[in-house]
């Protein structure tokens, strides 16, 4: 109230600025009021700044072309009175301006903001009606009123206003962004997606807002969002939005499908390239492979081709990777070919078990390679030889390349040779650098369970794994307990895990059973019990499954697997909804 009274007085005596006080620096008469106002505002002298903005406003109102200055003066007054906790003081000033300029958008937006902050909803509605009367065919009053209501959290009210706007104006695109926000707040996802799509057509910068808004669409409503964004006409923004949404929903393949259907042009290629980079970062290599191969098919350039080859290799498609780098290499001078494509070719040949060929290529290229490139290639060549089980050749390559300080390479070679002491010493040093390497974790886990310094059996078991000869590795790990009793449970667990990934589920269960029976107190016992319980449950033997779960919970209460086991036990007992029930509801 007090603020409003002060403001009224200011309107009635517009030219009277605040009298100078001892803290106010004297002002030169020719300083323009805008500069003066900004100076006071910077110095946080709010009353003086307000007075200067008032002077500026008064002058601007007298000028025929003073629109910009009026806006600056009003915005300045809004700021300084807000800082002085006199926010509603701006209202009488704004109303005075609106009497002369009833359609002034800045004055109207300040009026709306001030009324909403003061929770004067009836006055806000009246202000909106007045603006509408002043500009009956303009969407601006509707747009500003809708935004204000949305900011006030009055989404349902905004929804009604939007309906009125559509009835009165007969067009929607002008209000698409506001409609999108309202529908998003109301979680009417299909309409929200439609509105965002319209908004993106008219205002391309809303794409990011659309992406954030639609990310939280629940799983059960996502198909409607997909349908709207896939509807014709097929446009790059709509498909790019869909691909971004699919990524955030954990569906990179679907995201690519949305983009792959686009007609090829520069903007499509840019969208695909961005998508390829995103899926690479997520480690979705099979999708990345398709993205880069598609791009390479149209561009035929070296950089894209190399990314396609690298993605193919990471996706496990070494044959395609090799074919692609060979194709790329044919169009390059020999030196460049060696430096740009050799690394991928050696990795691909290694993965294909063609170590000799990889070695020959490196040998042929050797005169053209610098020391750094040669050092980078050595571990790849070592891996290639290990892949075919030739430990001696691997060691020879490593030593020739001067890899004596390469703990990872020499540690693995030592392990394959059965030199556990050396392997332990070297591999431990690499663990911090490769904490996600499953094979390294398995090796270190096993080495930590025995003090034996030499074991050919352990070395050959891991070498079988390096050769990707899973059947041989399973048998060797399962038999390891005979020569190394200390590692029996951990080796059996590794054998069981390997067997469980293939078509040898019964073998896996036999090994898990051996752990549960013969090594009941070992660290692997909880995992064995969990796997056995699951197998019993799958086979319909509920009693046996419950018994296994209970043994796990009672005998291994400190195990990290306890929460998982308890949840599965509750599901088996019907104490929580079955997983299928949850999935059905999500799919409905």
């Amino acid at each position, binding site marked *: 109230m007090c603020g409003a009274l002060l403001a009224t007085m200011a309107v009635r005596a517009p030219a009277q600025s605040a009298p100078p006080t001892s803290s106010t620096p004297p002002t030169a008469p020719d300083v323009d009021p805008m500069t003066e106002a900004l100076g006071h505002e910077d110095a946080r002298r709010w009353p003086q700044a307000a007075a200067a903005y008032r002077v500026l406003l008064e002058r601007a109102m007298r000028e025929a072309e003073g629109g910009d200055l009026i806006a600056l003066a009003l915005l300045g007054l809004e700021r300084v009175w807000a800082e002085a906790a006199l926010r509603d003081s701006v209202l009488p000033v704004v109303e005075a301006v609106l009497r002369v300029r009833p359609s002034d958008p800045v004055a109207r937006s300040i009026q709306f903001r001030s009324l909403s902050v003061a929770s004067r909803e009836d006055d806000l509605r009246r202000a909106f009606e007045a603006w509408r009367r002043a500009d009956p065919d303009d969407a601006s009053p509707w747009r500003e009123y809708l935004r204000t209501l949305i900011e006030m959290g009055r989404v349902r009210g905004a929804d009604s206003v939007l309906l009125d706007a559509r009835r009165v104006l007969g067009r929607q695109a002008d209000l698409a962004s506001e409609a999108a926000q309202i529908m998003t707040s109301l979680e009417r996802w299909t309409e929200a997606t439609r509105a965002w799509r319209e908004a993106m057509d008219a205002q391309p910068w809303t794409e990011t807002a659309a992406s954030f808004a639609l990310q939280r669409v629940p799983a059960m409503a996502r198909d409607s969002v997909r349908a709207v964004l896939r509807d014709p006409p097929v446009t790059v923004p709509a498909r790019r939005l869909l691909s971004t949404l699919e990524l955030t929903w954990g569906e990179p393949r679907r995201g690519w499908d949305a983009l792959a259907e686009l007609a090829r042009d520069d903007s499509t290629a840019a969208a695909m390239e961005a998508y390829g980079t995103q899926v690479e970062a997520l480690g979705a290599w099979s999708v990345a492979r398709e993205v880069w191969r598609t791009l390479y098919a149209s561009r035929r350039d070296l950089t894209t081709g190399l990314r396609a080859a690298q993605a193919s290799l990471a996706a496990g498609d070494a044959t395609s990777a090799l074919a692609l780098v060979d194709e790329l290499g044919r169009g390059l001078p020999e030196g460049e070919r060696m430096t740009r494509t050799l690394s991928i070719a050696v990795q691909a040949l290694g993965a294909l078990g063609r170590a000799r060929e990889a070695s020959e290529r490196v040998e042929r290229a050797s005169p053209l390679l610098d020391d750094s490139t040669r050092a980078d290639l050595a571990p790849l060549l070592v891996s290639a030889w290990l892949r075919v089980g030739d430990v001696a050749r691997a060691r020879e390559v490593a030593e020739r390349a001067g890899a004596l300080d390469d703990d990872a390479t020499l540690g693995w070679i030592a392990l394959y040779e059965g030199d556990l002491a050396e392997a332990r010493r070297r591999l431990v040093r690499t663990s911090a650098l490769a904490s996600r390497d499953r094979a390294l974790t398995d090796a270190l886990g096993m080495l930590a369970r025995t003090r034996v310094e030499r074991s050919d059996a352990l070395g050959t078991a891991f070498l079988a794994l390096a050769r990707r000869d899973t059947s041989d590795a399973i048998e060797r790990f399962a038999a390891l307990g005979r020569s190394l009793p200390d590692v029996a449970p951990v080796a059996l667990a590794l054998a069981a895990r390997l067997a469980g990934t293939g078509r040898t589920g019964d073998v896996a269960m036999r090994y898990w059973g051996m752990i549960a029976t013969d090594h009941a107190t070992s660290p692997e016992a909880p995992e064995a019990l969990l796997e056995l319980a699951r197998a019993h449950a799958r086979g319909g033997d509920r009693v046996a499954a419950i018994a296994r779960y209970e043994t796990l*919970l009672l005998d291994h209460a400190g195990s990290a697997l*306890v929460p998982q086991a*308890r949840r599965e036990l509750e599901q088996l007992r019907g104490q*929580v*909804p079955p997983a299928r029930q949850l999935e059905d*509801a999500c799919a409905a």
Partner: protein
Amino acid sequence: MRGLSRLGRWAGHAIAMLALAVAPLRAQSLLVPMDDAQRNHLKAYGLAFDAIKTSQRAEWFLNYRGGSFLLPDAAALRRKATLDGVSVTPVTDAQVAAIRAELVAANMDAVVLERVPRIAIYRPVDQPPWDDAVTLALTYAGIEFSSVWDDQVLDGELAKYDWVHLHHEDFTGQFNKLYLAYRDAPWFVAQRQRDEATARKYGHATVPALKKAVADNIRQFVERGGFLFAMCGATESLDLGIAAFAVDMTGPFSDGTPVDPDVDAKLDWARSFAFKGARVEVSPYVNALSDIDGHQVNVPARRQPLGAFSLFDFSAKLDPVAAMLVQNHRSVIPDFYGVTTSFNKAVLKPGVTVLADEQGAPWVKYVHGDYGQGSWTFLGGHDPEDAQHAIGSAPTDLSLHPNSPGYRLILNNVLFPAAKKKPRKT
């Protein structure tokens, strides 16, 4: 004989001395903390229920560490606690004595739980247990219950039970006014056909007449000493069904006849549990039964946003029933919608005990009262862990909410009929 008796006394003393000597080595009781130290609050109720069932002894320490339980230190209970992930602390008699001293000095008390309540849930027998918060809670906690439906209620079977729970059934017989939106949905058609068949079987002309008869049977169950707990739409519709026993409050879409034009004046609130003076919503197009609900979630123009409700503090020594019903490790709980979410203060009967409300709001959330020789408790809302539950929503998986304060309110109601002493009210 005398020699033998003396020998027996000596042997008795020796055994007692031996027991004292080994006493420090093992605990005599298990304390089940119900504050934030508890890993699974909901299953702790199941453990207490098991203790009452197997050893006929448990104590509920009201207001002590969130309403903790003291159970005998039995191997079976320790096993169940471990399997269920319930936190228990073994305590000696000396430690228990110290706790009791604390209970005496503060607004706390110990209530002996000694009788396993016979529990019935009013629900179609063939319905899966995932659309009713009480069934979910009891199933998850491992507390046994039976299901009763209209046939059992009308056949007088409620007398077999101590505790009856109702969820979102519409006792006015209007199918929660879902007719307009779901009349062709297979589940709705099946429900209507089932109710019409039951009405015919018991000689009632319409489903509203059938449901009002069921409501009156439930009223009589409480009047004769039963405990009633109702949630969601059952709270409002039960009282309306009882008050409208002699008046037609339903439209032609449910019974073929128009609403009595003077329905509000003819409602007999003397018969109802919690409400008085409510106005019936007669329009078939407005998805609300009356003005009892403060939130009106299914009426877009009247729908109120959700806030949070606060549990009241009660004297554990003077008002143990109310204190039992609000035992919790949280005193402010996020609100949740239901067919009936809350109860307008203006329509509450005098004498109703308000257990929880929302500060500054014209409604309350959780109320309790006596009726005849029994008592009732109403909790608004459908599912404490699914604030906006809708038809077709995924069922709530309580293993993801083992510490749910909202679900604790339901389980407090299940356990309090097990209390030994007849509680006094302030």
